[in-house]
């Protein structure tokens, strides 16, 4: 069996004159949480809908475990649980009825304990007999995950799952997604335009723009190495600024709060910078090294725009 559970090759889809996907490529490793990023209209939902056969691509190939999803549609869909944009249910029916309807369509007749187990996993215990029309958006999102899990698929696809959730709902959902990977060994593809969310949970990332893949790789690799931001918090910013500048560091002037300085550096240089600051004896209240996904994302999408402009 191939190491990649999903491979998308040269996917094209147009709606009239609008080119939604323009030769998109990506691959998802088995057992990872895969973050699928892009601005609104970048082509994330179209890609996911092509994968799930909701939209027919004009060209290209989508492979699941090395087999074409177009040719082996039902075999593929049997191994997928998904939420597309927002989970919608038969509002007059209870959560249990909705779950049973969904399971039956997968040809599965789950035991009551199995149904209650997924309800327990998503934290809907005690509400499972209530009509879904009484549920909040967060509860529907949880029920959507329960529905996606009930037939025990290999792959979970979540398209913008945090839409409409409050902060607590987002945190709960994040924890559930983590458990899907760690406790249930599922591969999870999660699309979002909320970068901070993806940064927190994704093992791998793919950023797309205008229907094309801009970058793909391991999150840790993409967000580290060469361009890290180090923030130093001190009550002697001017002295700190001079120290770092004299050491040849690329440091920006103190921030408007007057206490923090930010410098750009490679990951390898961070211990040395730390040593230099400690040896100077200047007071330090905080020292943070980071690379924000936001920075990477903006950098890449803006570059793509610039390149498009040049072409």
């Amino acid at each position: 069996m191939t190491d990649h559970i999903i491979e998308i090759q040269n996917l094209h889809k147009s709606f009239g004159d609008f080119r939604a996907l323009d030769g998109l490529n990506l691959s998802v490793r088995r057992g990872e949480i895969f973050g699928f990023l892009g601005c609104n209209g970048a082509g994330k939902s179209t890609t996911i809908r092509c994968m799930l056969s909701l939209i027919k691509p004009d060209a290209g190939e989508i492979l699941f475990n090395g087999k074409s999803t177009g040719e082996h549609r039902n075999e593929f869909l049997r191994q997928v649980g998904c939420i597309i944009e927002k989970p919608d249910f038969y509002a007059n029916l209870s959560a249990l009825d909705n779950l049973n309807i969904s399971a039956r369509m997968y040809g599965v007749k789950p035991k009551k304990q199995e149904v209650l187990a997924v309800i327990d996993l998503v934290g809907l215990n005690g509400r499972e007999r209530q009509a879904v029309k009484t549920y909040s958006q967060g509860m529907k999102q949880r029920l959507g995950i329960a529905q996606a899990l009930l037939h025990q698929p290999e792959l979970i696809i979540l398209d913008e799952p945090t839409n409409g959730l409050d902060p607590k709902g987002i945190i709960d959902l994040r924890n559930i997604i983590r458990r899907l990977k760690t406790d249930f060994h599922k591969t999870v593809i999660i699309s979002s335009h909320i970068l901070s969310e993806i940064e927190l949970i994704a093992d791998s990332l793919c950023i797309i723009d205008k229907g094309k893949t801009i970058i793909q790789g391991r999150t840790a690799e993409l967000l580290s190495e060469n361009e890290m931001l180090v923030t130093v918090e001190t009550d002697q910013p001017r002295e700190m600024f001079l120290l770092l500048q004299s050491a040849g560091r690329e440091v920006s002037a103190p921030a408007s709060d007057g206490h923090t300085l930010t410098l750009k550096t490679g990951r390898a240089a961070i211990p040395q910078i730390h040593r230099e600051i400690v040896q100077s004896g200047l007071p330090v209240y905080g020292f943070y090294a980071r690379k924000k996904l936001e920075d990477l994302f903006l950098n890449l999408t803006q570059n793509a725009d610039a390149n498009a402009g040049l072409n």
Partner: protein
Amino acid sequence: MLDLIRTEIFKIAAKPRSYIGFAAIFAIVVIIQIALYADGQAYLDFLIQSLNQSFEIEGMDFNGNLVGFIILQTLIIQMPLLVALVSGDAISGEIQGGTIRSLLTKPVSRSRIVWAKFIAAELYTLLLILWLGILAWIASLLFFGPGDLVVLKSDSLVIVRNADTVWRFLSAFGVAFLSLSVVVALSFLLSAFAENSIAPIIITMSVILLFTIIGTFDIPVFNQIKPFLFTTHMIVWRNFFDRPLPVEQIAQSAGIMALHIVVFLSATLIYFNKKDITQ
């Protein structure tokens, strides 16, 4: 497939709108029955007063068969609306509610989903017809008693003996079911195109209304298209109360209606299989 059909029936049963038809039929039938119970003979006398001027008619009484026939004639006009309320919602309701995304990401072909929905809508229609039959005919027989059925036509009067009414009523209900199946198939096709469930219901009724209006005008250009309009054949159930029985005409109408069902359903399958779900 059985599981799919069962699921679709369950969905229909869970919607409040599915019970509107049963409640409406009950209300209308009971009201007509009460009215006819109170003034039935006077109504009958009114109907045959023109005939009484030319003929002496005796032994014509008010009975369950006649009440059943009158109710059937009245209600058959409303039945398409009651059927379209459910069948017009079958696909568009899923689109409007957003459940279409979940439905079409299941390992079941789109054709099977359409078939399951169509069969479930047909079963619903059959139940509605049975309900109508039980209330309009069987309940009328119980309340008013059996008797010969007098059918007044524009140019003649047909008397059907009581013993001869059972198979005629059953056949009439059977053909009425076929007529309503055309409505189911049409609203189904419209439902596949629509993104809300009101549009297919309104358009179905508008088409029926338009075709019925065309059918009532005696204009040469309309006369050429009338035989091809399904509404022309939807009243064929009345032919079962003719004497002699116009078998050829009934078969032709049934064939044309069946052809409409095949065309509407095929178009639904072709379109729905190609449809991109972007909602």
